[in-house]
């Protein structure tokens, strides 16, 4: 066997094993209960009047996956609910809709903390057409 063929086999094995390890560990370690958010004070960037942190955006992603994706879709393109990408609304308006609902969308102020709603607003802002 030539050294190049041996290298090719090793390369394919390394690629497959590394992906299998990642996806296998993720399948085992991904928590079933996603609502375990503990807010932190670590503002990194200020955007649209909100303190942006990686934690808040990623928490927003988790809450979007749990509460919003069924109606608004994977990319915010709209399924049963409207398309929410590039909405021409302020953060305060989006926050108000999430908090109080907009029929038929339910209100979330009793389900989510203020920080979770901030995270959702930040995550929704990342959705693009």
């Amino acid at each position: 066997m030539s050294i190049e063929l041996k290298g090719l086999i090793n390369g394919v094995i390394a690629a497959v094993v590394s992906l299998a390890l990642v996806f296998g560990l993720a399948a085992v370690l991904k928590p079933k209960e996603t609502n375990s958010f503990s807010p932190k004070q670590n503002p990194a960037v200020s955007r649209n009047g909100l303190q942006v942190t990686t934690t808040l955006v990623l928490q927003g992603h988790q809450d979007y996956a749990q509460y919003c994706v069924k109606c608004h879709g994977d990319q915010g393109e709209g399924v049963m609910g409207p398309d929410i990408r590039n909405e021409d609304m302020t953060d305060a308006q989006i926050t108000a809709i999430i908090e109080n609902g907009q029929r038929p969308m339910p209100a979330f102020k009793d389900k989510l903390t203020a920080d979770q709603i901030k995270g959702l607003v930040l995550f929704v802002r990342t959705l693009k057409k």
Partner: protein
Amino acid sequence: MDPSFFEKLHGGSTHFPIALIAASFLFDLLAYYFKNKTLELRAAAFYCLLLGALGAIGAVFTGLIITNWETFGHGALLFHHYFVWPAFALMMGIAAWRITVGDKASPNSYQFYLFFCAIATVCMGLAGYWGGELILGNGS
């Protein structure tokens, strides 16, 4: 431990594979054209690739920890992952190939290597772009 420790570690480690795979590709391209400096340039490319691959392992695992082991997700995170996984697999694959073959690659197989290295560089760059969009993009 500071709860944002892994966020900071991801933010730091993620730049190593992005920069080093690009540097490795550049050194290899230069080695291809400047034959009188081939050995030195290929050595630089090899070590950049090796360090980049190690950085990629750190970046991937800290990323998985901060997203609660999410491998795809939604929105910008989904696009980030669309490019991260091919880039990660390619980087591990070409690093293993390079470690095995060393300097004994024929010109033909070296061209194939450069092709896959170019794809890994582009995927890594796009993964970085969407990671930045997730945290810093204004979304409008």
